[in-house]
Each structure stands twice: as structure tokens, then as C-alpha cells.
């Protein structure tokens, strides 16, 4: 492939796509009777938040990256919780047939439940908004980790297990020297998918609990009728989610290359 072709694929075509979407957006916003702000107006109103992304002018008036940072911290906590619970759970499901048969049905039932449904339960359980948000993130985001880890454990090649048996490795050594490394690629696929979900959940959790963050800001600006900021938040959430996924893909690829 020539260098030109690469440029077209990676630069020109995505630009054309973005221009197309902005064009439709402009058309829509210029229609009579719509509340949708135009791209230009969105930029003008949001400029302050983007140009001074870490500025704190007040509790509800902060730079967009500052809000994003709050959200990321919360996501990191909830995600860590999801992984800490999800990975061992996945190992148990993968290792023990009895455990898998006992808990698989209930996992299948809980898995599709929306974060919007978990959040009120979290508020009932913990009575404060931050733990409730963490609970919701953890309980929604852990399933890909649980299921991928379980699949990974079940598909550890018999050859590796035979090596452990022939060398008479202890259970602990077999787990740490053979099973966990062999499961790594599957685990990291789960971790990546879980992170995506955790980031999805954060916005919903912040909206409902009023925890400061990019989702909380979005909801507050909706209530203050500053619709331009809704679009700013959506774009920020999307970009951050994209970056997180790319970063996790890099980590994942590292473990898959072995």
C-alpha cells in the first residue's frame, strides 16, 4: 500500500465523515423550532471549559477535564472493585463444575440488569451516593471479566496442566505458575470490556446521584437549559471512552503476544 493510500484511509476519509456529521448537525440546528444548538454556538459557549480545562470557578462550574478527572477517579475505584470481585469469581466458575452449575443461572439473570436498576438498590444498601455509584459500577462492569476469565480457565490447554501434574506442583503453584498466566489473555479481554461498561455506567450513576463529574455536569447543565454543554459532555465522554479502550487494547495486545 502506498503512503498516499494510508493518508487517505487514516486522515482524509475520517475527516470527510466528521464533516458530514457536522453538516447534518448544522442543518438540523438551523431548522425552525429546534432547541439543538449549532456547532458554532456549541463551541462558543463551551470554549471557556475547553480552553481552561482544569479551572475551578465554583462547585458546579469547573473545566471539562476537571469534571472528567472526577469521573475517572470514581470509575477507577468502581472498576478496581469489579476486577477484584470478578476475577476470583471467574476462576471459581472456571475451575469448579459444581460452582459453575450452581451460580451460572443467577449470573445469566443478573447480567442484563441495567445500571439504572442497580443504582436505587445501591442507595438503599449504602445510603450515600458515592458508595452507591461504586456498587453500581462494580456490579455492572464485572460480568465480562467474570465470564471471560471462566472461559479462559476452562480453555487452559491440557498440556500445561499435564506439566503441572507431572512436576507435582502444589495447588497454589499450579494456580500462579500455570493457570493464571495461561488465562491472562482472556482476563485482559474481560478487563477491556469491563472498563468500557464501567465508563458507560459512570454517567448514569452521576446523573442520578449528583456526584460531581462529567455526567453530573451534563445533567446539571440540562436542568440549567445550557444545551451546548450537553453536547460538550457527550463528546468528552465519547473521546475519553475511546482513549480508555485504546489503552486497554495496548495492554491486552501485550499479553496476547506471548
Amino acid at each position: 500500500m502506498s503512503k498516499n493510500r494510508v493518508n487517505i484511509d487514516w486522515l482524509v476519509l475520517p475527516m470527510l465523515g466528521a464533516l458530514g456529521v457536522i453538516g447534518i448537525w448544522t442543518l438540523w440546528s438551523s431548522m425552525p423550532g429546534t432547541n439543538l444548538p449549532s456547532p458554532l454556538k456549541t463551541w462558543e459557549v463551551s470554549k471557556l471549559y475547553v480552553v481552561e480545562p482544569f479551572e475551578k470557578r465554583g462547585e458546579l462550574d469547573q473545566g471539562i477535564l476537571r469534571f472528567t478527572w472526577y469521573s475517572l477517579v470514581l470509575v477507577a475505584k468502581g472498576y478496581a472493585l469489579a476486577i477484584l470481585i470478578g476475577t476470583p469469581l471467574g476462576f471459581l466458575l472456571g475451575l469448579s463444575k459444581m460452582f459453575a452449575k450452581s451460580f451460572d443461572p443467577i449470573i445469566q439473570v443478573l447480567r442484563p440488569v441495567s445500571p439504572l436498576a442497580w443504582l436505587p438498590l445501591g442507595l438503599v444498601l449504602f445510603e450515600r451516593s458515592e458508595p452507591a455509584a461504586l456498587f453500581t459500577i462494580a456490579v455492572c462492569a464485572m460480568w465480562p471479566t467474570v465470564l471471560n476469565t471462566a472461559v479462559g480457565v476452562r480453555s487452559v490447554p491440557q498440556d500445561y496442566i499435564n506439566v503441572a501434574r507431572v512436576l507435582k506442583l502444589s495447588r497454589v503453584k499450579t494456580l500462579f505458575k500455570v493457570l493464571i498466566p495461561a488465562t491472562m489473555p482472556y482476563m485482559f479481554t474481560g478487563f477491556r470490556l469491563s472498563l468500557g461498561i464501567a465508563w458507560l455506567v459512570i454517567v448514569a450513576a452521576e446523573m442520578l446521584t449528583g456526584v460531581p463529574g462529567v455526567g453530573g455536569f451534563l445533567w446539571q447543565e440540562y436542568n440549567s437549559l445550557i444545551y451546548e454543554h450537553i453536547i460538550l459532555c457527550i463528546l468528552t465522554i465519547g473521546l475519553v471512552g475511546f482513549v480508555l479502550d485504546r489503552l486497554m487494547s495496548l495492554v491486552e495486545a501485550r499479553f496476547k503476544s506471548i
Partner: protein
Amino acid sequence: MGAYLTISRLTKVYPTPEGPAVIVRDFDLEVNKGEFVCLIGHSGCGKTTVLSMLAGLNEVTSGVMVLAGKEIKGPGPDRGMVFQSPCLLPWLTAFENVMLGVDQVYYTASRQERHDLAEYYLSLVGLADAMHKRPAELSQGMRQRVGIARAFALSPKMLLLDEPFGTLDSLTRFELQKVLLDLWGRDQKTAFMVTHDVDEAIYLADRVVMMTNGPDAEVGDILDVHFPRPRERKAIMEHPDYYRLREYLIIFLEERAEKKRGIAPDTPPHVDERIVDLGPTRYKGRNSSKPIGASLHGDPKRAGSNR
């Protein structure tokens, strides 16, 4: 003097929906200390089943295996296993793969001693310069060298080899057979190797045990190979008895593997007894009148050496 390894009436039965399938029935064998025994037979005849029972990886239905006065129960590092696929852990380097076993066996030795031991065996198999590479960076033959080093580094009572060179090209196979023989001669190990390669069996073994076709597979015949050691491949292949031995094995695989067991060949090949002791010398034929079922796997007319 009793044998070092005694296998008596070893039987493996798998339950199937059509009733129990007897894969191996009453497999008897005695192996002396320091002896190299090859087990040869058609693929699917149950030779790998015998080996994995010896390794403790496969449950024994009935029968007893005694190694150095101790009954074999389950797997353990007292038997150094070389797998067909080298079975290296891909996230560990060659050195770490060997260390995994060394740490397990020599847990009382110092870290330095264990390091030295792993390095010593990796150097012996010719991997001194590649021992810190991952399996993915090694060729198939180099990986199997690691597998051999790992087995020897455990200082096992005996070696179990499951067609270790079956997937290698013939040049690499020749090299590795030599590496294996060198290490075996140096450490005076007892070795039991499954193979379907007639030439490999003659080059390596003191005795070649021929297995009848399954189901109900058992020892069909035993061939003594009395070429002097250390062996030179070229000298052996030029030896007049080489082709007699080879023919004897091939005839067994092509014709007799399927016949009733315990019957000596009609016309034993003529061999100079001073050099080569042919024929079923240690094998006592049983008066078995069981009908022998058709082969489950493949065409019994196909020579085992062709694969």
C-alpha cells in the same frame, strides 16, 4: 536381580455407550536399570495409553507398575516426561521452564545450585546461547531440546518419552536422537520411549517392544538390539544386521501385529547370534485363545515406519 521397572497385567478399559472398550489388556514388561526400551506399534494401538499410565496421567483400570521397588501411584517428578509437543509454558523462557521443575525437585538446594543445574542441562542439549528465549522464539527442534533438558534436570528415576520427535523433520530428528542418547549415556538413565519410527527404535533402544493392535493390545514380541554403545548412526546403518532387525520390526507391524498373540514367527530371521540377539527371548507367550478384534484405527497393512 529384579527388574527396575515391572509392569504386570496392566489393563486400561474405557467405558463407552456400547459397553466397556478394552484398550490395553494385560500388558507385561520388565525393564532393567539403565536400559533403553522403545515401545513400537501402530498409531492408536494404545502405546501412548501405556506411557501415560506410567506417567500417572491416566488412571489404571487394573494391574500394577513398580518402579525401583515402589508402586507407581499418580504423576510425579521421579519420572521425567518428554511430551510429544514439548509442552513448554509459553510465557516462561527456556531457562524458566526448566527451573519450574528444578525448583520443585531440588527445593532444599540453594538458588545458585538450582540455577547452575538448569544451565548445565540446557547447555548439554545445545541451548547455552538461547536459554533466555521464550518458546515462541525457538524452533520446533529447540523447543524439544528444552523438553529433554527439563526431563533430565529433574534427575528422575526414569525417563518417559512420548513420541518426542514425531513432529520434527528428519534432520532435526537425527540431531535430537543423538542429543538424547548422549544425555542418556551420561546420566545412565532408564528410558522408556514410545515411537512409531522403526529406525529410531533400532538406533536408540536396547530392546524394542512391539505392541499388537488394539483393542486388547498387549506385548506382541520383543526384539533385542545388541549394537555396541556408544552408537554411531552410520556404523549401525552399515551393519549387516541392521536391515534384518528393521525387516523383523516391519514384518511385525505389517503382518503379525494383527495375528494371534504369543505365536513366534514361522521363520525366524537368520541373525549372527554373537552380535544380535533376535526374537522373543524374554517374552513368554501366553496361551491366549481370545479372538482378536479388527483394528479400530487405520489399515493394519500400513507400515508403522511410513508416518
